[in-house]
């Protein structure tokens, strides 16, 4: 399988996926010891998606992970101790014990937005970050994830539609793991492929094998390049399987056993190990070194978390408002004069680009004038209308363009 990544990068993908899996195994052990205050939401079998997609981003880009995207947090530079202390509600956690699980972030350096439990709500927020990034001249991409269940929310539609008309640099990963708690995807949507939704918004869509980290990374990298170039949002459906229950408490007896067995044969870590071996990118010694490094890191961080105190009770009353503890600062990458009068001044009149609307039903010629700023967007490199979505250059095996109907 062709890939543009270096040997080191392929080993990185293994490191993060293995770290993701081993960390979660530690969390399950801690859960059984009653050391986890809330739930543990396993991403077993989905590590390739968290890791591969986040790995495709640049340092200035933004992510908003969901609860099963611990792998994305690790790629973004958070440490196992951050995730462990969050789950164990310790004072040393990124939220000081005020919230749990992967509900934390970092606006200033890692550019990670904390999720909330209500699904779909990250999509408009990340759309706003992409819009702000363009306004500030940053050329950034905003990436977030949603499940097959979360794709049923109203805000999913509102946000993807807004991102589409704004040509926002948003990459949305729809992780179709076939189960929304106990409800199968066929009760969430009548579509076979959730990627078909892209067509409805006039944006680029793709399907990828979510258990193939190399394919995931490559598809995400293409989507990120497409979005960064100003061509608008991309929806990637990554097909995968939730191999555990909704959370640690849930034995998931509603999942047919043969489904689990079948997906076990597609385990993303096994597959990447095989890929590394077949392509002679590592040997037994390399694997052992990485695995031992992970074991050392995890042992140190578990000890750190277990020895961390709970927060002082009085902390509960603090921090409702920002009272000067943070500064709001935009990172301008373009001259501010461009957005200030008199340079910002325009004629407040729509220039309708849609040829059908502008010229009536009988004339189907493309509009001769184009107003790139007419929808609030900055001029995009491509001035074509989005009536017919363009497909980015396809790579072998990784990417399936969206087709209408089945």
């Amino acid at each position, binding site marked *: 399988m062709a890939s543009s990544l270096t040997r080191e990068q392929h080993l990185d993908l293994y490191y993060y996926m293995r770290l993701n899996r081993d960390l979660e195994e530690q969390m399950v052990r801690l859960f059984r010891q009653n050391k986890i205050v809330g739930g543990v939401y396993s991403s077993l079998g989905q590590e390739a998606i968290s890791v591969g997609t986040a790995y495709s981003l640049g340092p200035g880009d933004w992510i908003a992970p969901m609860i099963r995207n611990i792998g994305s947090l690790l790629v973004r530079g958070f440490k196992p101790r951050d995730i462990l202390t969050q789950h164990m509600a310790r004072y040393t956690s990124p939220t000081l014990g005020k919230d749990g699980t992967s509900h934390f972030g970092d*606006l200033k350096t890692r550019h990670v937005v904390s999720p909330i439990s209500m699904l779909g709500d990250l999509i*408009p927020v990340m759309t*706003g970050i992409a819009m702000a990034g363009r306004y500030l001249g940053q050329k950034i991409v905003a990436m977030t994830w949603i499940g097959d269940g979360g794709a049923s929310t109203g805000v999913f539609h*509102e946000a993807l539609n807004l991102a589409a008309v704004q040509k926002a640099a948003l990459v949305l990963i729809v992780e179709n793991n076939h189960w929304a708690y106990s409800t199968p995807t066929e009760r969430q949507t009548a579509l076979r492929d959730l990627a078909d939704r892209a067509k409805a918004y006039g944006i680029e869509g793709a399907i990828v094998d979510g258990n193939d980290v190399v394919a995931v990374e490559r598809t995400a990298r293409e989507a990120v390049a497409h979005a960064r170039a100003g061509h608008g949002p991309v929806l990637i459906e990554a097909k995968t399987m939730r191999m555990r229950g909704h959370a640690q408490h849930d034995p998931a007896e509603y999942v047919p056993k043969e489904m689990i067995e079948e997906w076990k044969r597609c385990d993303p870590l096994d597959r990447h190990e095989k890929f590394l071996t077949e392509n002679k990118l590592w040997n037994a010694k390399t694997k052992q070194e990485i695995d031992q490094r992970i074991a050392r890191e995890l042992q140190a961080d578990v000890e750190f978390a277990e020895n961390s105190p709970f927060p002082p009770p009085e902390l509960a009353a603090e921090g409702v408002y920002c009272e000067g503890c943070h500064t*709001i600062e935009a990172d301008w990458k373009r001259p501010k004069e461009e*957005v200030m009068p008199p340079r910002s001044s325009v004629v407040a009149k729509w220039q309708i680009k849609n040829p059908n609307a502008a010229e009536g039903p009988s004339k189907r010629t493309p509009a001769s004038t184009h107003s790139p700023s007419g929808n609030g967007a900055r001029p995009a490199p491509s001035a074509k209308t989005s009536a017919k979505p363009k497909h980015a250059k396809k790579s072998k095996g990784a990417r399936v363009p969206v087709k209408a109907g089945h």
Partner: protein
Amino acid sequence: MAETTYLEAIRQAMSEEMDRDPAVVLIGEDVGVYGGAFKASEGLLERFGWERVIDTPISESAIVGAAIGMGYAGLRPLAEMQFIDFIACAFNQITNFAAKSHYRWGAPVPLVLRGPCGGGVHGGPFHSANPEMYFVHTPGLKVICPATAYDAKGLLKSAIRDNNPVLFFEHKFLYRRIKEDLPEDDYTVPIGKASVRRQGRDLTIISYAAMLHTSLEAAAELAKEGIEAEVVDLRTLLPLDTETILASVRKTNKLLVVHEDTRTGGIAGEIAALVTENAFEHLDGPIRRVTSLDTPVPYAPPLEEYFLPSVAKVVSAARELAHY
């Protein structure tokens, strides 16, 4: 200087802040080319361009969500709800995303969500709401309800410069009905400070927004009968200026709260609890309230008039309390 309407004061606040700080942008439905349903943003697109005045699809949840994201990225977005009734469509973004963000993970949301509220204009059940108390009950938000043009401008400027999510409820009945001379120079009005609009000794009337004017008219009527009512304008509902409220009650020993919001769960109940907890020994009578009925806002003029507080209803309740 010519007198400025409440609506023009809001437009001036937005325009002057956009001139002062390129991080301030406006996002909402029909806010650009059309200039807003009430023309609050008229002229802003011409002056600041497509990137700073952004017309959106009809998607309140996405509008608020996008504004939160812009705030995370260092901007100071102003989001408009075309009528404040539609804020219900964005409830989750406001209460679960924006309000909890700083407390949960230390991420401030410098967002102003503004829009026209209130009745008295025969807008019916979906264009007349006063939804402030849903949000006063949400820690992390600030809730502002200005009653004068001066305050509308000064408080909106403060809201834009604030690092927290601020809901700014503009009373549409006041948009073009009240006007006053405003200072030429830049000024702000602090969030969280009430204002004593009329000094009095016999009882305190606490109110805000359009009902401030009803209360002041009632106080003028009462003065003819020799009853001197002190009138307090809350201006901000969250955080509440408890000092000004308690100081006035300690002075007059009687309290009437007047609000256009419906009765059950209105701010009057909270104020009554506050006063009985902190100034019970100063009270010489029961705390009374004049509010709208516990119904949706009805459409027909006689129904809406019956539903709303009025000068006559305030005078009657105040007179009874003064003589208690």
